[in-house]
C-alpha cells in the first residue's frame, strides 16, 4: 500500500477511526447495558459479573471479530490508517493515567512494585535462558524470548531483536506465542480474581507482574474493574506496568551482554547508549501528569476537570482496545510452535501462577496510598 503524506494521511485516518468510534458507542450505549440486565444461568448480569464482559473485553472481542470474520484476516485499506491510531490512543491514555497518582503515593507503592517486578523480571529471564538452552533453541531467539517473557511481551521483543541479531521470522513466531498466552490470561484473570476475592490492589499487583504484555495488563485491570480512579485495579496495575516498562533498557543491556559474551565477534555494549535509544519517553509524560496531580493543578478529587479527564480516558482505552482486537489474527497466533512455544508457555505459566501465590501470601488487601 502506498504511504500517504500530510493531509491525505489525516483524511485516510477518518473512515477507520469513525468505524472504531461507532463500534465503541454501540458497545457502551446498547450492548453493555443489555448484558447487565440479561439473565443468564439464573442470574441477572451474569455475563458482566462473572465473565467480566464489560465494554473493555467487548471492545477487544469485537475488534477480533472484525479482523477474523468480517475482514477475513486483513484490515481493509479503507480502515487501515484509522486502526493504526490505536497505539497513539493507548499511549495518550497511559500518560493521562499518571494523573491518578501523587508523588508520595508512588513512593509508597513504588518500593513494593520495584522489588516484585525486578525479582520476577530477572527470575523469568534466567529461567528462559536455562530452559531455552535445554531445548536447544538458537541463542538469539532465547534472548528475544527472555525479554518478552520477562518484561512486557511484544515491546520487549521489538527492543531486543536487533541487539541479539535475531531473525525476524523467528521473532514473528515468538510474538505469536506471547500474544496467544497473553490473550488467554486476559480473559481468565478477572474470573480468577473474583473467585479468590482479590482486592483491586492485589489484582493490579498480580496481573501487573504475571501477564506478559503491557496492553493486556491494562485491559485485564479494566475488565476487572472498569472504573478509572485512584485505588482501582487499573491504577495499581499500571504502576506495576510502568515499573516494568522502565526496566526495558536494563533488560536489553543484560540480555545483550549475555548474548555477546559467547559470540566470537563481541560488540561494544554501552548501557548509556541503550538507555538513550530504548528508554520509553512516554514515561516522562506519565510522571509529568503525576507531578501536576501532586501539586493539585488538575483540580481536587471529584472536580469537573478530573471527571472529564477520566471519561476521556475510558473512551480512549475503549477505542484503543477495539483497534487492538483488530490486530489479533487467530490464524497467525496458531502458527506458534516448536521450542519457543514450549519455553514461552512454561515461563509464562510459572510466572503467572507464582505471581498469584506471592500476591496472596505477601500483598495486603488494601494499599496505603
Amino acid at each position, binding site marked *: *500500500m502506498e504511504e500517504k503524506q500530510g493531509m491525505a494521511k489525516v483524511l485516510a485516518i477518518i473512515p477507520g477511526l469513525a468505524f472504531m468510534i461507532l463500534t465503541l458507542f454501540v458497545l457502551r450505549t446498547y450492548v453493555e447495558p443489555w448484558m447487565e440486565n440479561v439473565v443468564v444461568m439464573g442470574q441477572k448480569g451474569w455475563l458482566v459479573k462473572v465473565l467480566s464482559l464489560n465494554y473493555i473485553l467487548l471492545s477487544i472481542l469485537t475488534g477480533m471479530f472484525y479482523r477474523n470474520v468480517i475482514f477475513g*484476516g*486483513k*484490515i481493509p485499506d479503507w480502515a*487501515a490508517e484509522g486502526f*493504526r491510531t*490505536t*497505539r497513539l490512543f*493507548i*499511549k495518550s491514555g*497511559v500518560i493521562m493515567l499518571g494523573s491518578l497518582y501523587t508523588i508520595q503515593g508512588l513512593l509508597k507503592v513504588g518500593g513494593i512494585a520495584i522489588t516484585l517486578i525486578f525479582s520476577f523480571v530477572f527470575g523469568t529471564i534466567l529461567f528462559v535462558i536455562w530452559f531455552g538452552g535445554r531445548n*536447544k*533453541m*538458537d*541463542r538469539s*531467539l532465547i534472548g528475544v524470548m527472555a525479554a518478552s517473557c520477562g518484561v*512486557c*511481551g*511484544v*515491546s*520487549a*521483543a*521489538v*527492543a531486543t*531483536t*536487533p541487539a541479539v541479531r535475531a*531473525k*525476524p*521470522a*523467528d521473532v*514473528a*513466531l515468538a*510474538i*505469536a506465542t506471547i*500474544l496467544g498466552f497473553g490473550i488467554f490470561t486476559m480473559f481468565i484473570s478477572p474470573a480468577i480474581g473474583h473467585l479468590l476475592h482479590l482486592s483491586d490492589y492485589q489484582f493490579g499487583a498480580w496481573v501487573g507482574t504475571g501477564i506478559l*504484555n*503491557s*496492553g493486556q495488563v491494562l485491559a485485564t485491570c479494566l475488565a476487572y474493574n472498569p472504573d478509572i480512579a485512584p485505588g482501582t485495579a487499573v491504577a495499581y496495575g499500571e504502576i506495576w*506496568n510502568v515499573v516494568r*516498562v522502565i526496566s*526495558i*533498557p536494563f533488560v536489553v543491556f543484560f540480555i545483550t551482554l549475555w548474548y555477546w559474551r559467547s559470540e566470537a565477534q563481541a560488540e561494544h555494549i554501552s548501557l548509556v547508549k541503550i538507555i538513550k*535509544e*530504548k*528508554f*520509553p*519517553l*512516554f514515561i516522562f509524560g506519565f510522571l509529568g501528569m503525576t507531578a501536576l496531580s501532586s501539586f493539585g493543578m488538575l483540580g481536587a478529587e471529584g472536580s469537573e476537570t478530573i471527571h472529564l479527564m477520566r471519561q476521556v480516558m475510558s473512551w480512549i482505552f475503549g477505542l484503543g482496545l477495539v*483497534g*487492538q482486537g483488530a*490486530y489479533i489474527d487467530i*490464524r*497467525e*497466533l496458531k*502458527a*506458534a510452535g*516448536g*521450542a*519457543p512455544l514450549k519455553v514461552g508457555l512454561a515461563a509464562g505459566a510459572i510466572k503467572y501462577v507464582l505471581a498469584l501465590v506471592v500476591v496472596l501470601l505477601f500483598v495486603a488487601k488494601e494499599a496505603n496510598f
Partner: protein
Amino acid sequence: MMKILLALDPSTQTMDEAIKIATDKQASLTALFVLDTTWNDYTAHDWLSGSGSRADFLEYARDHEFVSETECAATFRKRCPFQCEVKSATGRVSDEITRELIEGEYDLLVMSHPFRRGLEVVRDTAGKILKDITCSVYLVQTNPPALFSRNGSASLP
C-alpha cells in the same frame, strides 16, 4: 507461450521444480520476490516501547528483507540455465503475488508450501492466494527449516 510465475522464498527445491516445469513446457519463467512491509502492523501490540526501539526494529526487519531478496535472487539466477526475469515488489506478500498473477496473466504459479517469506511464516499464503486467482497452482511441499535449532539455517532444501 505458457507463462509461469515462481514466488520466491529460500527453498531451492521449489526453484528447481519451477525451472524443470518451464524447461519441459518450453514456458517463460518469471520469479517474484516480495519484500514484506507488514511488520509495522504485526507488531502493533507493542504499545509502549522506547523512543527508538520500534524504528530500530522496523529498520532491522527491512534490512533483513533486502538481504533475503539479494540471496534468493542470486540463488535462483545461479540455478536457472536459461533466460529468466526476476521481479521485486513490496507489500503484503500474498497480495503482491496475486496482483502479479492477475496483471501478468500467468498460466501457472509455483510456490513453496508452507511459504517461508517474511511474516508469511505465520500465515497461510497459498490458502489466501487460492481464493483470489483462477490460474493453476503447483505447490511444492517443503520441510520447515530448522528455525529454532542452535545452529539452524533458514535455507530450505
